[in-house]
């Protein structure tokens, strides 16, 4: 009995000891919380992003996730934070002759990819051809008829139809210019989860857990080692904006892509805020022929809808000082912007136009919208304004973008909520307003006047094209194809230990390649 008691006592003491050990572990763990700051002091840049990349393949990666590719792939041409195009893998470039149908690139010598293979004209040709084949959306290179390596480091693109924006297409923002190693192109499937670029970093598979965090280490063959600022770059996937802000405040991460709802909290925490207007949000009046809702076939009705919106009020109410009210699909200072006002808020004028068009009591307008990207909020606010002039908006809201875009493409709705990022007027044509814009022009609206302007602008020199771009935007506005309301901002919050996090109208998307330790 005694022995049993002793054994029992020992066992109790052991259990008590184990509990103490666990408590000690927790206490010691609590004492090491300062380690969360290690990211910013050990040569590591830690970034938070709201989601994982759909693919790391430059030909397939969505623009939302371009950070994941840009760290590892240098583009042919680099758009710097001011929006100016700078040499990168291409030392120089330009159109040959007039008409924008022949484009030459001269490549930088002595460049190697992260796998050690050299950059050659044949390799660039193969990479661009792969992009054209693998890219699933409407391609900005669709008019290219031939790509030729005209020398060891010179490439010529010949186009069946003019394209004046090839330099922009070959920047980091579009993917086509992010050149992939020819060695890796032998097995393109591996590009989804690995990198093979000539950028400053390369993906470190050992330090990466897909969908959670992605580690990048310097590319040992990088041609410009001075612009490699960190021994490691870590992108952590943090979907919740409040969580990513908490991680930033506590030093777990150094830079995050923020949202408007957390901007004030970031400001009060003395974090650095970079912001620029990026996406115009409003309505696309898709049924310009009036096949679904006959009223929309009358230009006066589309103009009335534009007059009925108090853009300043909506921008202030939804986005405060960060909202930029707009009547146009481009920002001041960008290609195509018109200085003259088109639709100063005037509900009386809206009612008058509706009456002239035969709708004195208004009409019912079914609109499909989505909660994502602030589109739902804006369309809801617009519905309230339109009600004041007698237009009854029937909103169908999809919480997820996939269902929304399915309805948009289906063409059942006469109008849909739209959020569209800034880009040159020529490139907008292929995705927004030409009949070939599969997603955002579902009813294939077309007009010879618009197409004529577009075709002339495509082949024109820069000065003439600037005028024609203005005429295109003016035409779209006067015809009321869209009801733009507000340019919504993009945000980047950073700690003071990081410099170079910029967002401007010329290049709204801050690029991690630019970021460096603050001196």
């Amino acid at each position, binding site marked *: 009995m005694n022995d049993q008691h002793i054994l029992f006592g020992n066992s109790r003491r052991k259990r008590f000891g184990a509990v103490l050990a666990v408590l000690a*572990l*927790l206490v*010691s*763990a*609590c004492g*090491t*919380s*300062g*380690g*969360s700051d290690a990211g910013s002091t050990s040569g590591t840049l830690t970034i*938070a992003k709201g989601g*994982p990349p*759909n*693919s790391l393949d430059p030909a397939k990666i*969505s623009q939302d996730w371009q950070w994941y590719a840009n760290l590892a792939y240098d583009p042919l041409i680099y758009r710097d934070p001011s929006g100016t195009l700078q040499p990168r893998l291409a030392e120089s470039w330009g159109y040959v002759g007039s008409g924008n149908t022949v484009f030459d690139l001269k490549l930088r010598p002595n460049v190697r990819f992260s796998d050690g293979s050299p950059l050659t004209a044949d390799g660039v040709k193969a990479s661009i051809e792969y992009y054209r084949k693998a890219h*699933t*959306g*409407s391609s900005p290179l669709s008019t290219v008829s031939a790509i030729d390596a005209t020398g060891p480091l010179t490439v010529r693109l010949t186009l069946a139809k003019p394209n004046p924006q090839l330099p922009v297409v070959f920047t980091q923002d579009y993917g086509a210019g992010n050149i992939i190693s020819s060695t890796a192109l032998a097995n393109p*499937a591996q590009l*989804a*989860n690995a990198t093979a670029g000539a950028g400053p970093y390369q993906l470190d598979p050992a330090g990466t*857990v*897909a*969908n*959670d965090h992605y580690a990048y280490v310097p590319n040992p063959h990088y041609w410009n080692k001075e612009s490699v600022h960190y021994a490691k770059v870590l992108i*952590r*996937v*943090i*979907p*919740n904006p*409040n*969580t*990513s802000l*908490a*991680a930033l*405040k*506590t030093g*777990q991460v150094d830079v995050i892509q923020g949202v408007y709802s957390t901007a004030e909290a970031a400001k009060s925490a003395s974090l650095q805020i970079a912001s620029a207007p990026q996406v115009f949000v409003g309505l696309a009046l898709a049924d310009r022929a009036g096949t679904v809702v006959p009223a929309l076939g009358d230009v006066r009705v589309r103009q009335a809808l534009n007059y009925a919106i108090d853009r300043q009020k909506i921008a202030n109410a939804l986005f405060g000082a960060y909202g930029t009210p707009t009547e146009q699909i481009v920002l001041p200072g960008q290609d195509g912007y018109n200085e003259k006002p088109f639709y100063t808020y005037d509900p009386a004028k809206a009612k008058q136009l509706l009456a002239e068009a035969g709708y004195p009591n208004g009409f019912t307008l079914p609109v499909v919208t989505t909660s994502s990207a602030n589109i739902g909020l804006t369309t809801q606010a617009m519905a309230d304004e339109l009600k004041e002039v007698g237009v009854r908006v029937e909103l169908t809201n999809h919480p*997820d*973008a*996939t*269902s929304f*875009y*399915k309805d948009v493409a289906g063409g059942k709705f006469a109008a849909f909520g739209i959020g569209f990022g800034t880009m040159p007027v020529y490139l907008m044509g292929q*995705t927004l307003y030409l009949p070939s814009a*599969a*997603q955002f022009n579902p009813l294939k609206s077309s007009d010879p006047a618009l197409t004529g302007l577009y075709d002339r602008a495509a082949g024109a020199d820069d000065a003439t094209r600037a005028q024609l771009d203005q005429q295109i935007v003016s035409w779209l506005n006067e015809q009321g194809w869209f009801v733009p309301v507000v340019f919504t901002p993009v945000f980047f919050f950073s700690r003071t230990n990081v410099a170079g996090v910029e967002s401007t109208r010329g290049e709204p998307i801050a690029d991690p390649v630019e970021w460096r330790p603050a001196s």
Partner: protein
Amino acid sequence: MSRLVLRRLAISVSLVFAVSLLTFLLQSLTPGDTARTILGTNYTPEGYAQLRQQLHLDQPVLTRYWDWLSHAIRGDLGTSPISGLGVGTEIANRLGVTLALVLGTTVVATLIGVALGVLSAVRGGVLGRAVDVLSMVGFALPSFWLALVLVLLFAVTLRVFPATGYVPFLHSPAGWAQSLVLPIAALAVHGIAHLAKQTRDGMLDVLSRDFVHTLRANGASESSIIFRHALRNAAIPVVTVVGLMLVSLLGGTVLVEAVFAMAGLGGLAVQSTTQHDLPMIQGVALTFTLIVVVVNFAVDLAYGWLNPKVRAR
């Protein structure tokens, strides 16, 4: 007992099969598909049709299910058409997070909940009423809200625990424990409240029975009466609650995973469902079903251990 085990095994196999079929059919009925997710917002109808064909989405649902099942039976859960990652690898990467959260929460909630319940039943008075009040408060607090408050207090303001992230045990045991404290605290409150109330009510019921008076009359010690007799008798409904809590935590961790940016199976289930990533959804559903089967099995065995009448059936 062996009959119980065999019966349970037979039911479990049928359950796994039924859940996998149901998940496949339900997912096929939801609007949208994998091809649209891959193509994003900017695609041509021809490109869409071609990709659907490549992904075999143009084939009948049952054909596709059979294709998945015939591979799954051989241990091949396939590859995500969205990310290109192996389903088995992705689940293995995330299983540790979910198990740490679910098992950690269950252990913490059981220890604290049962202790509080026993204490309040034995001491009664103010403590008993306090447990009642705490239970109600615990039931009412949403775990994701509590998680946000805990982050604000203990991570952002006091800086004693990390705001986000999960550290694998093998990477750093101390970091692992540290990264789990706040999420488990947020998840465990509800379970503690439930178990404290359940244990208190069960203990009060057992302690009022005649055999307890007989034990006291025979000179049995109070600790023996409480722990060897009363708690064991009150434990069966408590074990049921623990089992149910563990199962509900599998789905319930998703919001807390999001608040703490932990890549667990809950987040994977939501992500793959919104992306229409069928192989991944099937893999996650299969994993959850297997865990539920194992938990139910363990609960049944615990019943048998606690109650000899069950063993005899």
